[in-house]
């Protein structure tokens, strides 16, 4: 049995992203001291949208965005059936003494964020790191990691999977909850 539930539809998703942007602006003003870093592979789609939206609201092209791959820093290397295939890291700016907003689509166990924090340190020592996620799966953390900005909070069980889908890769903008085979 494969069940599916819609968590956010296209309009709700757009509104949520807009709200997250205004929350970011409250804390980071004009982003002169703040950079965005999207986590590969799926966090970058959200990060790109946030960057675009922020630039629109602020009327500038100044918000910096990088993408960070965490593959080599993960803790499940050699504990999986197939090798972890890495993605591109692209950070064209210095994060030393900057405020960094890490962006990912779904926060579940917190392990990806942990590896992201490690991977980021190769680029300098940020002044402050915050975490923005579209969906927070509550009560499922394996590590003491909590987000600063949350699009939607969802209660789910292990046999379910939450997927943020994006037009450029999945053909549709929406967030769904799926049952996965055990």
């Amino acid at each position: 049995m494969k069940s599916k539930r819609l968590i956010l539809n296209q309009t709700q998703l757009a509104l949520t992203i807009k709200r997250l942007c205004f929350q970011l602006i409250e804390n980071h003003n004009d982003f002169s001291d703040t950079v965005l870093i999207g986590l590969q592979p799926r966090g970058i789609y959200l990060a790109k949208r946030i960057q675009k939206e922020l630039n629109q609201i602020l009327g500038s092209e100044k918000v910096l965005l990088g993408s960070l791959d965490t593959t080599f820093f993960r803790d499940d290397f050699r504990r999986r059936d197939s090798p972890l295939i890495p993605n591109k890291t692209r950070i064209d700016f210095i994060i030393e003494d900057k405020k960094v907003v890490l962006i990912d689509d779904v926060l579940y166990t917190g392990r990806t964020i942990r590896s992201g924090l490690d991977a980021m340190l190769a680029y300098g020592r940020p002044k402050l790191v915050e975490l923005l996620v579209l969906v927070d799966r509550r009560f499922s953390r394996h590590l003491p990691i909590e987000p600063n900005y949350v699009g939607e909070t969802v209660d789910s069980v292990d046999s379910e999977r939450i997927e943020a889908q994006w037009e450029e890769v999945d053909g549709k903008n929406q967030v769904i909850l799926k049952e996965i085979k055990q």
Partner: protein
Amino acid sequence: MGALSTKHLLGIKQLNQADIELIFSTADNFKEVINRPIKKVPSLRDITIANLFFENSTRTKLSFELAEKRLSADVVNFSAAASSVSKGETLIDTVNNILAMKVDMVVMRHPNPGAPIFLSKHIKANIINAGDGAHEHPTQALLDAYSIREKLGDVKGKRVAIVGDILHSRVALSNIYCLQKLGAEVMVCGPPTLIPKHIQSLGVKVEFSLDKALEWSDICMMLRIQLERQGSDRSVKYFPSLREYHQLYGLTSERLKKVKRSPVIMHPGPINRGVEISSELADSENSIILNQVENGVAIRMAVLYLLASEHENEE
């Protein structure tokens, strides 16, 4: 995307095209890593690697060691000159003793062709061949093809001339396999005494005139004359003198002007300036000799990473 089809890297012959492409795409990522301010990632932090060099090497050994350290592996080094091999210990005993100290991977260079294949049948660790006699040198061929891909966009359809001492060269054989698997055309060129008989059966062109080879090729890979393999007192003469070799098979800018070509120039090192290639050309814009060395670390990181990911599940 998936895993490599093999547990060891014994030679290019055992790899398929998908393996080579997986190694290249992984190396792309490691190339980015080694250009970061902090060049180290923790992927292999629970792995111990032994570098067993039964034959001299500078570049390959350094390159492997750097690759291992940048992946945070623990590294032990071993060179035959200062070991019990000189006391008469066999290869399997030497390696088993090292493995008894809980080593996960072995990088080995050995003067005897096939030594890594032999070893892979007798021990459990992953083995990476870093050169076995005149047989194969897979990581060198991988980094050569990777450098061609980086410089010219693709390897497919390119014409590569390998010039010099083909007879004693493991680099030549591995490169022939690797380039052909990626769809390039390969020609070997050198004095008849240094071209192995029946090499045509590998599907390569054979040319004895360097000018003609240059007219044909997009990439020119110069090899070193391996004087150390020509008998201990140089009793075996493959050509009359180094000077004559340079005149007939040395790559110089005059020669390139004459054939009106400017191929990409490669060399696996060490270079003998003024013998197989003039100093001027070795440092010229078309030379990617130092890019080859840089890419060597990324390729070796990719190979180690991909072989290590298989490790846990085997047991």
